């Protein structure tokens, strides 16, 4: 692993120094008591952005964190209400419920109880034209 680097810059008659390190696809920065992380793979982001725009009619619940699915409460063809719990997952010994943010019909359930899922993995696909779906409680 490459060490963190110091970066110096000048602004408004002052010299500043920050600490920075690229880890995976993010660049981390520490400056004046605060830590920032900046995604450094805009290629990747752009392509995902485009593919989403292209399928504007489909929305989904993505996994908000890596973890284990402990409960799936609805199945394909069923309707989800706004605020209804659709998925329960566990991460770092805490349980998180994923609720639907829209009233919509489920097109596909893409996970099952016991699955280890990754951050951003699609869990539920809706048939809907809304573009908001799934939020952590």
């Amino acid at each position: 692993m490459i060490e963190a680097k110091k970066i110096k810059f000048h602004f408004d008659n002052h010299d500043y120094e920050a600490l920075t390190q690229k880890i995976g696809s993010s660049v981390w920065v520490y400056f004046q008591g605060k830590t920032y992380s900046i995604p450094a793979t805009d290629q990747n982001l752009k392509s995902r952005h485009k593919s989403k725009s292209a399928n504007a009619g489909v929305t989904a619940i993505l996994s908000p964190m890596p973890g284990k699915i402990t409960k799936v409460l609805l199945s394909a063809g069923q309707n989800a209400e706004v605020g209804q719990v659709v998925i329960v997952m566990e991460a770092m010994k805490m349980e998180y419920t994923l609720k639907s943010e829209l009233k919509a019909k489920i097109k596909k359930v893409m996970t099952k109880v016991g699955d280890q899922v990754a951050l951003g993995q699609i869990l539920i696909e809706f048939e809907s034209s809304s573009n908001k779906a799934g939020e952590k409680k």
Partner: protein
Amino acid sequence: MKKINRLAIANRGEVAVRIIKACEELGIETVLLHSEADMGSRAYRLATKKICIGGAQTNQSYLNIPANIQGALASGADAVHPGFGFLSENADFAEAVEKAGLIFVGPSANSIRLLGDKISCKQLAAKAGLPLIPGYSGKDQSLDCLISEAEKIGYPVIVKAAAGGGGRGMKLIKNSTEAKELIESAQRESLSAFGSEQVFLEKYLDRAKHIEFQIFGDSSGRVVHLFDRECSVQRRHQKIIEEAISSSLSEDLRKKMGEAAVSLATLGKYKGAGTVEFLLQDGKFYLLEVNTRLQVEHSVTEMVLGVDLVKAQILTAQGDFIFKTQDHSPRGHAIEGRVYAENPYQGGIPSTGLLGHVSFPEGPGRRFEYGFESGDQITSFYDPMIAKVIVWDESRPRAIQKMIKVLEGSVIFGVHTNIPYLIAILKHPEFINGTMTTRFIENNFAEGLKVPALAEKEKILFEKVLSAHKPSLSLQDAQGGIKTNSPWNQSWRIL
């Protein structure tokens, strides 16, 4: 009476490191009983020996009693320290350790059953005349029964794991519509974390402070208390900031609560380090529960009292140590902040990943307990607490001021942490005044933190940083990290 030469640690992370340091100083070898996922951890690197006892899933390793016993025996250890969490309050484990001919560093299996089980503890406390919170702790654990008992108590009601602790398997039920879902959730969490799905119900006290007493029993049956801690700053019943000693107790109240704690622990024939937790509301205190183990926040007691509780545990297990309460009086003020791997700008969502640069600004009256270093992976298998930052100073205001500085000087790259959240709490007037209750977070930080606007100099810095790492990269303010559902939505770019 038997000198411990090699001690097995049935735990991981920062508490495993804490135990290793204590053993090193006592000239005791250590054996880390670890899962497959923990070979890149500080405890793994520091332990004298390490034995892999199973897979990453806790039921395969850290909650697996036979695997732990087998590992301890195979390593030639003569004692087992359970740390906190996992099997630390499991009486069957304590018993299995003793049966295997090893010393269990903690209270007897009997004490754990009497005091650690929340329900039998309440029964014992009632005998000892301690004030209890109204609730239900019956044997009928059917959903119907639990829901009807909750109705009787009257909402809000808390459902808790009988074998639990640390906020896991614990849910606040505000009304009847969410009762079923939350009770089931508590049962599942309890099963996963503690291996038992028994729960109980309590009336929710909505303006209470969390005050707890450190107790310590020697092998002769004598129990003393080592003063109090306040842990009112909690989120989802999980402690975030702890202090010693509480600034909310009159000397009279401190004396009464301390005596209550000691009388209960004495009745439970308590040996070693433990904690009696109370809620304090409108000047009245109620027993909350007893934790029959070392507490995460033991460090603040150590700093104000000048004791080493982990060494005291080990020495007591050997039979050669006695705490004399009259020797101890608190001095100054200590604060602990738990550093969680989570994104404070997204409601505390867990954050995992490869750790990069990690550094803490050491100095007088500062202590850093951490389990992971640069190059280690933070996984989703275990508790999100990756470090503890502890400060001591001559007074509470000075300790708060120091803590803010120390947190601002702490750098963790690779996972998001709640450090900005801790700083915001420390700067809140209610915390500064010491008037916070267990609803402090709910009342003041329900929305989580807002991503602060970037100053011009920060934008210039980020541009420079990105071009240093890779030219022509666009920039997204990710102090809040990737937005959960739509990572591209809220980015901004330097044009």
